[in-house]
């Protein structure tokens, strides 16, 4: 993306607009939460459940006429309909199209789709789903376009299509050796029918040019390193004004009164606007407040500092993190919460156990804090609104803006820029609505609303806060016979239903219901927990506290029982088998089919074994050093990590090395899988070491990167070794990549600290707990 995205219609040379049957995937709305995630669980009499990409809002599209354009000079333009936030999707999915199309990557250009799911299929870029869901549709796109070019060449030469084949941006006639370039054929190919999906000739894996290879450079790499890449904050429109907003510091609060007389004296300030908020649930609505609109961002910020606002904080002013932690501990200490699953007889099993274990693990609120804070630009002209934004949820943004402007979604265009990080924060398009409302207040003039870092931390959609209470019983032979898990955390569902106090299947399917252990007596409970702030998705979501608790607990048990942690963990996982998620009462299964995606303990065992081998588990280490192991299954991908730490006598910690083994099924872009895993290791270290958002009197206490710290180069692991487990069968189901690397890091780190120091961490962040 070299320049700001305009309302660019695809300059297609392939202009055939006839629609073949089943061009679109299945658009399913009946079982879809308003939040854009498919919801498992189907009442009797309803149609058969759909899974994966079929179950996503607006499904999927594999029409080459939507996704590919070929210019007469041979330039192949491929549409990326998923948002790029660092996971590499603008490279990985177009690369799949280019491969099936036999296109030369150096002649491929990628353009970004605006939010339009009817046209492109689902665009919610979250849940580690982009490649998992769109690998096959994008293969279809490339193959169909290739076959159209082949048919056009065969017609031109008057030969059978069997005699021609595509190779590196050309169609060749095998018997004569004649060739025609893609640019020469584009127009003729465009007049042909799109082949039926059933007749597509997909490549075999040995024919792949880019898929599964390490060779493809990032499509935006050069633009990024030269400052030319366009993020949301880089949009500049004629006459654009800049705004910042003073939002209620407490969730549900509102403006009681304000005085802007000093603000209006600041040079450059144009206007002060009161923005109506909306009472909880937040959904994707703006929080309201007082906006200051100015000629530049700095003037707007100066003006905001001069505002005098009296807030009506509302009932959440009572929210204090210390007290809330005590409330959660109280709730987790006794039974009586909602029982999620009860297998065997937990009471009897605990009573008859030779040894019992009990522990509570705490993870505080976390902020995604993408380096580019939320920002959006809007302009209203001739009854239509255009928004430019770094968003993971372009269609939801479009619909929410339309609702607030009382327009039809057809009259709202959301242009998706590059995202300067997302991590779940940018799945909520509240900031797009703010920009649209401010443009409206300025009679349609373009307005860019920028969130400061303080705004981002104070008014986010935070990762929840949680206590995971675990109990286990072990018999005389050292076998675990009882497992009790009480999970206490405000649910993301509270953001959509203010009364909700229990977790959704989506959250429970992240390491509560779908534990892979061979234990006879299991009890899973979810006591109530009320939310007092906006709760949202954070990379890997509820898997963070579950992996931290469960994988720490298992290490604690192994230590107490004087067993090798690895051996004990594998014993607990039990033999290789494929567990039906339905048997586990896991209604979610990451939205995937229980048949195609069972919980495969063989694969889990393999990542554990692989990482132990690569990191040389069990090796002798000098005093003050230790290795820690953890494994976790999330987003239908299997990971295991070993962290090596060194802790000085003063308690200073360094991390010489992390190994992470990953089985995500077929690897479409291994280079980007590695980079995602490296990043997940560092983000995992960051949240474990220093990550904490805390509340006092309803307001967030951390203001910026001094209070809310994140790991810097100095503290980051010296070496990260990513071990991708081979899987060459591209017909097997794909796993997620963006998120699964994160969950095992915090527990592996804490287990390593225990190995090095004997100090057990049950409360995150670790911060000063190692100081002697």
């Amino acid at each position, binding site marked *: 993306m070299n320049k700001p995205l305009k309302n660019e219609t695809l300059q297609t040379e392939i202009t055939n607009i006839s629609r073949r049957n089943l061009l679109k995937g299945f658009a399913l709305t009946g079982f879809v939460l308003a939040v854009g995630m498919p919801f498992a669980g189907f009442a009797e009499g309803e149609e058969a459940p759909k899974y994966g990409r079929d179950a996503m809002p607006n499904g999927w599209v594999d029409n080459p006429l939507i996704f590919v354009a070929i210019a007469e000079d041979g330039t192949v333009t491929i549409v990326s309909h998923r948002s790029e936030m660092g996971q590499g999707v603008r490279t990985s999915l177009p690369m799949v199209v280019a491969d099936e199309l036999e296109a030369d990557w150096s002649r491929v250009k990628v353009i970004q789709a605006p939010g339009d799911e009817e046209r492109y299929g689902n665009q919610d870029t979250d849940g580690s789903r982009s490649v998992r869901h769109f690998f096959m549709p994008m293969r279809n796109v490339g193959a169909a376009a290739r076959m159209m070019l082949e048919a056009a060449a065969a017609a031109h030469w008057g030969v059978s299509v069997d005699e021609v084949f595509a190779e590196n941006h050309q169609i060749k006639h095998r018997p004569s050796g004649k060739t025609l370039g893609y640019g020469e054929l584009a127009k003729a190919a465009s007049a042909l029918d799109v082949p039926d999906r059933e007749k597509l000739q997909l490549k075999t894996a040995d024919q792949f040019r880019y898929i599964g290879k390490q060779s493809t450079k990032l499509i935006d790499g050069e633009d990024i*390193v030269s*400052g030319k890449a366009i993020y949301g904050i880089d949009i500049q429109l004629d006459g654009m004004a800049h705004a910042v907003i003073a939002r209620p510091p407490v969730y549900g609060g509102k403006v009681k009164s304000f005085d802007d007389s000093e603000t209006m004296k600041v040079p450059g300030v144009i206007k002060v606007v009161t923005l109506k908020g909306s009472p909880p649930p937040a959904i994707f609505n703006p929080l309201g407040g007082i906006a200051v609109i100015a000629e530049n*961002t*700095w003037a707007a910020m100066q003006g905001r500092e001069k505002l005098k606002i009296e807030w009506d904080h509302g009932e959440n002013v009572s929210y204090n993190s210390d007290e809330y932690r005590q409330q959660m501990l109280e709730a987790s200490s006794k039974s009586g919460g909602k029982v999620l699953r009860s297998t065997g007889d937990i009471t009897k099993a605990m009573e008859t156990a030779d040894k019992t274990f009990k522990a509570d693990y705490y993870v505080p609120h976390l902020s995604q804090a993408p*380096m580019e804070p939320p920002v959006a630009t809007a302009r209203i002209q001739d009854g239509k609104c255009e928004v430019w934004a770094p968003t993971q949820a372009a269609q939801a943004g479009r619909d929410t803006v339309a609702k607030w402007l009382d327009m039809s979604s057809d009259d709202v265009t959301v242009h998706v820029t590059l995202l*300067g990080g997302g991590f779940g924060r940018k799945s909520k398009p509240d900031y797009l609505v703010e920009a649209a409302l401010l443009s409206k207040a300025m009679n349609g003039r373009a307005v860019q609303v920028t969130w400061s870092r303080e705004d981002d931390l104070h008014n986010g959609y935070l990762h929840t806060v949680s206590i995971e209470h675990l109990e286990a019983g072990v018999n005389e032979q050292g076998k675990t016979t009882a497992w009790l898990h009480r999970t206490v955390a405000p649910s993301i569902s509270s953001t959509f239903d203010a009364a909700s106090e229990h977790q959704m299947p989506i959250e429970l399917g992240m390491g509560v219901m779908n534990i892979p252990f061979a234990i006879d007596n299991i009890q899973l409970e979810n006591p109530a927990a009320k939310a007092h702030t906006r709760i949202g998705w954070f990379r890997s979501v509820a898997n963070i506290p579950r992996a931290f608790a469960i994988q720490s607990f298992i290490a604690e048990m192994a230590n107490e029982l004087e067993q090798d942690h690895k051996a004990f963990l594998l014993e607990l996982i039990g033999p290789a088998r494929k567990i039906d998620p339905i048997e586990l009462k896991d209604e979610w299964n990451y939205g995937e089919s229980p048949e195609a995606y069972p919980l495969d303990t063989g694969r889990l065992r393999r990542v554990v074994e692989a990482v132990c081998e690569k990191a040389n588990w069990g090796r002798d280490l000098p005093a003050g050093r230790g290795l820690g192991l953890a494994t976790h299954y999330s987003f239908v991908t299997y990971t295991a990590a070993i962290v090596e730490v060194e802790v000085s006598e003063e308690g200073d910690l360094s991390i010489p090395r992390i190994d992470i083994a990953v089985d995500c099924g077929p690897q479409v872009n291994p280079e980007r899988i590695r*980079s995602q895993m490296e990043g997940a290791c*560092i983000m995992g270290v960051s949240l474990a070491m220093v990550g904490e958002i805390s509340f006092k009197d309803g307001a967030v206490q951390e203001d910026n*990167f001094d209070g809310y710290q994140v790991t810097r180069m100095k503290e980051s692991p010296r070496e990260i070794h990513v071990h991708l487990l081979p899987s060459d069968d591209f017909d097997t189901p794909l796993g997620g990549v963006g998120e699964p690397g994160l969950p095992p890091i915090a527990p592996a780190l804490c287990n390593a600290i225990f190995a090095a120091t004997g100090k057990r961490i049950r409360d995150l962040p670790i911060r000063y707990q190692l100081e002697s």
Partner: protein
Amino acid sequence: MKLSINGASHEVNLPEEMPILWTLRDVLGLTGTKFGCGKALCGACTVMLDGQPIRSCSTPISAAKDKQITTIEAVSEDKVGRAIQQAWVELGVPQCGYCQSGQVVSATALLRNNANPSDTDIDNAMSGNICRCGTYNRIRDAIKLAATKSGGAQ
């Protein structure tokens, strides 16, 4: 006042305390330099002032009087800067890329002053630049690669 940016002179009529960052971005349209924190805590806004890396979000334009500002847009004009950029691309350093303008400028300033930096030198020069995606290890490797290519480390 007059500002010298990437070798060109710009006459601006702005309050002297206005940060260089917002002058570059909102007034002069040079958007390669990024906003991340506004408090000199994250390094996304790093530019060079007479060759030294500074945080432009917290440096007023008055501090740039009679000095040369170099932003990410002009890094490629410098041999060391170009080597840094090429190493970044070759090793696939960026993920989201938002912090990388600042990272590239900090790394260029480092390598210009120290052709053969040790790990500790790299840590010290780069720890003011936050990368939330976690690209630190590749940044370190890319600095070493660029050092080799531009005649520093062996």
